[in-house]
């Protein structure tokens, strides 16, 4: 009997140790005194470049060292409400996507930078790309500082362009009419005109060129509009006339193997294109309907501070030091294929050699970077993702699809506001 009791207690003890062990290790991370817990959603190759920035910063021996923690973005966004609610393990500094900021501000989760900026005079509007900077200003307060502005533009195959559309780039704008004309010619040689990749930015860019936007007043969604219909019809036309790739065909593979002339994609995709040997590619702005209104879909990674009562002033100063450091030292970030939002980068000759630099170098092009800034962007994005592919490949009636998408966003907003 005694033996049994002893063995039972030992088992329970082991179990308790195991269970509590997990608990303590996870909650104590990042609470070290001279450390800034820095969460970011960079897990791919760009994560390596961010690590490089952090390591170089830590080598300068700052009072507060940065502890870099990378998550897959969906995991990070799931964790944020939990830690902010519990008050334990709140990251001191976090990178979030620009489209999420309004939501966080709305829920009163972010600490504004207003009182801190006086001591950091260089962190100001003039030193950043407007699209990235402006989005952090909500109701007169600053809630975020941009790291980058990453845009959805277009790659083209230089050899195929020479063959099928030699004059298309003369005015630096490739229009959909020019794509269509080139595609008609290349079709006979079994070369696809344009590869349709990520449908959301493609649709949104065209929608905005036509004068549409996902919201009319910042509250109401506007998806079911004539402009949206026109944008979908334009894309469907390219599919129907076999200018674009067939449904299910991999546009990236087509482009990499030299079987597509045009390939709209993000500036961050160039590393993957460099892997393809013998591919002679160039980078230009997103295709336009007319050169009069140019739109390049853009998003931005932004530095925010989630509310934390226990964050000391000293530590906050440490955070600001790091942000200011990144402002001047973001070349590794540009080398990951992104465009840093801090204009200090323009002084770097290495940056100017990068293919995506043209978007920032030209102040006129800076103005074409459009971030779809809407409090309910998440809801809209979910529905647009369901809508566009099916609509342009003929699996969903465009009118019906737009109506459903509009209704779905409205319902989600209504349910979300029912409190």
């Amino acid at each position, binding site marked *: *009997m005694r033996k*049994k*009791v002893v*063995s*039972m207690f030992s*088992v*329970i003890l082991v*179990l308790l140790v195991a*269970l509590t062990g997990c608990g303590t290790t996870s909650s104590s991370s990042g609470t070290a005194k001279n450390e800034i817990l820095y969460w970011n959603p960079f897990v791919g190759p760009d994560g390596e470049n961010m690590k490089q920035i952090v390591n170089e910063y830590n080598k300068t021996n700052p009072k507060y060292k940065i502890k870099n923690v990378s998550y897959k973005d*969906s995991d990070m*966004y*799931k964790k944020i*409400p*939990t830690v*902010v*609610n519990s008050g334990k393990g709140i990251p001191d500094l976090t990178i979030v996507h620009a489209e999420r900021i309004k*939501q966080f501000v709305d*829920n009163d*989760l972010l600490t504004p930078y207003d009182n801190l900026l006086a001591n950091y005079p260089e962190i100001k509007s003039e030193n950043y790309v407007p699209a990235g900077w402006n989005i952090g200003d909500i109701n007169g307060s600053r809630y975020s500082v941009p790291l980058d502005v990453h845009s959805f533009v277009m790659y083209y195959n230089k050899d195929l362009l020479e063959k099928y559309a030699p004059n298309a780039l003369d005015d630096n704008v490739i229009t959909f009419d020019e794509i269509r004309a080139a595609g008609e010619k290349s079709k006979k040689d079994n070369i696809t005109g344009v590869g349709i990749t990520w449908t959301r930015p493609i649709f949104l860019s065209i929608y905005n060129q036509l004068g549409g936007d996902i919201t009319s007043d910042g509250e109401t969604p506007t998806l079911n509009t004539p402009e949206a219909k026109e944008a979908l019809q334009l894309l469907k036309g390219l599919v129907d006339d076999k200018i674009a790739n*067939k*449904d*299910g*065909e*991999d546009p990236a*593979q*087509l482009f990499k193997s030299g079987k597509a002339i045009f390939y709209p994609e993000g500036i961050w995709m160039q590393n993957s294109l460099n892997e393809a040997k013998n591919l002679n590619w160039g980078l230009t702005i997103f295709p336009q309907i007319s050169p009069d209104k140019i739109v390049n879909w853009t998003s931005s990674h932004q530095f925010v501070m989630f509310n934390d009562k226990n964050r000391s002033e000293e530590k906050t100063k440490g955070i600001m030091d790091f942000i200011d450091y990144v402002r001047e030292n973001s070349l590794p970030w540009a080398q990951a294929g992104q465009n840093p939002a801090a204009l200090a980068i323009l002084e770097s000759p290495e940056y100017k050699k990068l293919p995506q630099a043209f978007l920032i170098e030209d102040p006129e092009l800076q103005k074409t970077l459009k971030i779809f800034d809407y409090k*309910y*962007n*998440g*809801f*809209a*994005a*979910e529905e647009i993702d*369901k809508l566009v*592919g*099916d609509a342009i*490949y003929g*699996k*969903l009636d465009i009118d019906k699809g737009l109506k459903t998408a509009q*209704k*779905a966003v409205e*319902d*989600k907003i209504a*349910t*979300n506001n*029912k*409190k």
Partner: protein
Amino acid sequence: MINAGGKKYRKKRLNFSPYLYIGPHLILFTIFFLIPTLYGIYISFTNWDLIGNPEFVGFSNYTEILFNKDSTFYEQLRVGLGNTFKFVLFTVPACIIVPLLLAAGLNTKPRGFKFFQVLFYMPTLFSVSAVMIIFSMLFSVSFGPINHYLNVETNWLATQPYAWITLVVVTVWWTIGANLIIYLAALNGVSKDIYEAASIDGANSIQKFFRITLPSIRAQILYTLVITTIAQFNVYGQPLMLTKGGPASSTSVLLMYIQENAFGSGNSIAGIGSAMAVILGLCIMVVSAIQFIFLRQRD
């Protein structure tokens, strides 16, 4: 108990050992299953965005998804649950029959049966994402070996009925191992004497399979049937990664909508998501109960 019972009860030895055996499981069950389940049910009666405090709203989430025909969430439940049931109907029979036939074959101990046993079991060990990435490459329209060898240009993942066929094939391939192991163990326990006696009586192998093999392992078949049904009701990874719920939401299963509502890219609508999850849980319970009653009655 000892105090209240006095002498009479004190004699009865307090035996801890059964609790010792079930203890670890009980603790894990409570932490990772019971508490989350109860919490989930509570959330389904609230409006919650995961950030503020959950506010109690009674049955309003349920009336919204069950009765408000104009609501997006009603449509999501209808489509999601419908597709989930379809998936269960399409996959469960295959997930029972295919491993059973393979097990019966392996049980005759053909040459190299150990090799095949390992071969069939292996896929079960792979993660869902690894399996789905492999299959999306196999079924790729322009570069996939399947289209190449069949010499067709079928868009397997984005047109019906191919999307369903793909999902079923992938799921059966991926899950064969788990049931196969159970059947193999069960078949090992069937006495050889019965088969010998049947042979002497002149029974052929088909008769032996239906008259001896199947009845002998009925308990295990019932077990795998219930477990497989529950597992397939919880389908998520396959349609998410292979077909992305398409074409036109025809393979969007309920868990995808639950995930989107609770942890989507917009504000969380956890109350609606939880209510959908409770409905899914009830469906699983009812279907499992029916299977039990139906198959037990014949004992």
